[in-house]
C-alpha cells in the first residue's frame, strides 16, 4: 500500500507558480469566422457575439480587425486572448513602420508570425485560446490562411473556424469557384452565416462582413440576416396525431 501524505501535482515539472499563469479554459468566447477568396481580394464574415459560457454577454464585439496595410484578422475563441494578439501585432507593425524602408509586412508574413506565436505558446502549455483567420492582398496576390490554438496552420481558398468548419465548409466546397464577384461572394457568405445562425447556439443575428482588396480594408456596419420560420410543419407539428409532441 502506498501511503502518500501529500498529493503530487500532475505538472510537478513546472513548479507551483506556473499554474496561476496558464490558460485552462476560455471564458468570453466568440463563435465561428468564415472567409473566402473572391475576384478582388478576401471577404470575411463574423458575428458580433461574445458569450460568457451559455450567456450571451456582449453583443457588440468586433472580431475582425485590419492589421497594417495589407491584412485582415478574424478570431474566434477567447476574446481577451484576441486582444492580446492584437497588441502583439500592433508592436510588430510599429517596428515594421519604424524601419521606414518602403516595405511593409504582407499577409503571408503576418500569418507566419502568428503561427510561430501560437505554436510556441502551445508548447509552453499556455495557449492563446483562439482560432484565427488571416486574409489579405499584397501586390495583386491574394492570401487566406488560418491558425488554430495548437498551431495548426494552412492556407486555402475558403476557411472557417469552429462550427463553421462543419456547417459552412461543405457549402463552400460545393459552391465556391475562382473569380467570384463581390455580390456573389457576399451572397455565399451570407448563406453560410444564415445556416450558422440557425444551427449554432452561440451565434447571434448581428454580423459584419469585411472586405480587403489591394486598395484597403472595409469592415461593414453591423446588420442582421433575414430568417424564415414559416414552414407549415413548424406551425403545427402535431397535425398527424393530436396529443403527440
Amino acid at each position, binding site marked *: 500500500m502506498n501511503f502518500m501524505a501529500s498529493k503530487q501535482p500532475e505538472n510537478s515539472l513546472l513548479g507551483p507558480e506556473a499554474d496561476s499563469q496558464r490558460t485552462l479554459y476560455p471564458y468570453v468566447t466568440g463563435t465561428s469566422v468564415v472567409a473566402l477568396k473572391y475576384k478582388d481580394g478576401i471577404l470575411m464574415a463574423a458575428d458580433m457575439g461574445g458569450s460568457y459560457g451559455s450567456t450571451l454577454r456582449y453583443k457588440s464585439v468586433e472580431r475582425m480587425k485590419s492589421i497594417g496595410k495589407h491584412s485582415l484578422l478574424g478570431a474566434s475563441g477567447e476574446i481577451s486572448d484576441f486582444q492580446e494578439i492584437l497588441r502583439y501585432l500592433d508592436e510588430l507593425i510599429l517596428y515594421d513602420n519604424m524601419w521606414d524602408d518602403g516595405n511593409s509586412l504582407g499577409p503571408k508574413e503576418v500569418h507566419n508570425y502568428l503561427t510561430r506565436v501560437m505554436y510556441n505558446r502551445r508548447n509552453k502549455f499556455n495557449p492563446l485560446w483562439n482560432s484565427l483567420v488571416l486574409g489579405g492582398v499584397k501586390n495583386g496576390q491574394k492570401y487566406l490562411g488560418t491558425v488554430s490554438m495548437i498551431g495548426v496552420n494552412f492556407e486555402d481558398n475558403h476557411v472557417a473556424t469552429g462550427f463553421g468548419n*462543419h456547417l459552412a465548409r*461543405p457549402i463552400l*466546397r460545393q459552391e465556391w469557384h475562382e473569380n467570384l464577384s463581390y455580390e456573389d461572394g457576399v451572397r455565399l457568405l451570407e448563406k453560410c452565416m444564415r*445556416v450558422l445562425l440557425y444551427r449554432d447556439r452561440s451565434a447571434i443575428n448581428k454580423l459584419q462582413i469585411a472586405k480587403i482588396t489591394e486598395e484597403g480594408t472595409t469592415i461593414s456596419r453591423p446588420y442582421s440576416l433575414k430568417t424564415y420560420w414559416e414552414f407549415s*410543419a413548424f406551425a403545427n*407539428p402535431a*397535425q398527424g396525431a393530436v396529443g*403527440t409532441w
Partner: protein
Amino acid sequence: MAVEQANLCTPQDAAVVRTLRVFRDPHVDRELEPATVLIIITKHVMSSPSLNFQTQISGLILSLSFSGQRNMSNSVIEVPPKGGFSFDLCKRNEMLAKKGVNPPSFRKTGTTIVGLVFQDGVILGADTRATEGPIVCDKNCEKIHYMAPNIYCCGAGTAADTEAVTDMVSSQLQLHRYHTGRESRVVTALTLLKRHLFNYQGHVSAALVLGGVDVTGPHLHTIYPHGSTDTLPFATMGSGSLAAMAVFESKYKEGLTRNEGIELVTEAICSGIFNDLGSGSNVDVCVITKGGKEYLRNHLQPNPRTYTNSKGYSFPKKTEVLLTKIIPLKEKVEIIEGGDAMEE
C-alpha cells in the same frame, strides 16, 4: 423477520420498508410471505417515476432474507427474471472506463441519414458506409430499413441496435395490422420506437429518421437514442448531419416536386459523404408516396473504383503440373445408403 436489516440506501427504500411493516399484522403471529413482499415492492416500483429505482430495489430485495417457519429457512427470495436489459453492469463498466479499460469498439454506422417532406410524400436518403472504429467494415450496407409497406426508417448509431430495433417494431406493426385490419400509421411506429428507446435510457444507441405516408398524410420524424422525438419538414442525423443540414438549411423550400426532392436529398447525402469521414460510398434513396414506395438502392455511386485492371488478376503459376490423371482413393469402408445414425 429480517426486513429491518434491509440495506436502506435511499428514501424510497425506507418508504417500502415502512409499507412492509404496516402490512405485517401484529395480531396474527405469522411471518410475511415472500410473495406478499414482492407484490408490495413491485407496486412501489410501478408507481415511482424513475427507473433508477429499479436497481436499488433489486439490491434491496436481495438483502432481505426470510427466516420463516416454512421451507424457506435463511434463503434469499428468488427474484423472477425481469427480462430485457439489466443495468447492473453499467456502473462497473463506467468504473472500468475511468481506469482506462475500454469495452471493445462495436460496429457503428458513422453516418449521414436525411429525410424531407415534399409535395406528395416523404423522401429518405442515406449513405452506405459502416465503420468499426477507424476501419470501414462494410462499403455498401443498407441503412434504410423497412417498417411497413408505407413506412421506412433510416438508422444511425450502433448497427446492431438500429437493425434490431427496426426489425422488432416492424414485426410489432405487422401484428398490429393484422389485429386492426388497417394500414399502419407513422405515429404508431414512432410511439413504439420511442417507448422502447426510452425504456433503455439511451443504452440502445439508435438515432433514427422515420418517414412514411399514411391516411393522415406524409410524416417525417427524428428519434434520438434517449427516446425524444421531433416532427420536422426536413431532418438529418448521424456524424454527417451537420454537413447535410447545411445543404438543407440553404436549399429547402416547401412544395418541392419529386425530382427536386430527390436531387436535394442526393446533394445533402453527397455533402455528408465528401465532408464527413464517417460517411462514404454510395447514396441510397427511398421515395414514399400515397401510391406506394420506390426504393432506389445505390441511386448514385459517386465513389467508383477508379483503376481496375481489365485483365483481372492472374495468379502466378508457381506449381508445376505433373499429372492430369485422377486416381480415386481406395475405399476401406463400405458406405451403406440411408444410415440413420442420428434420428432427428
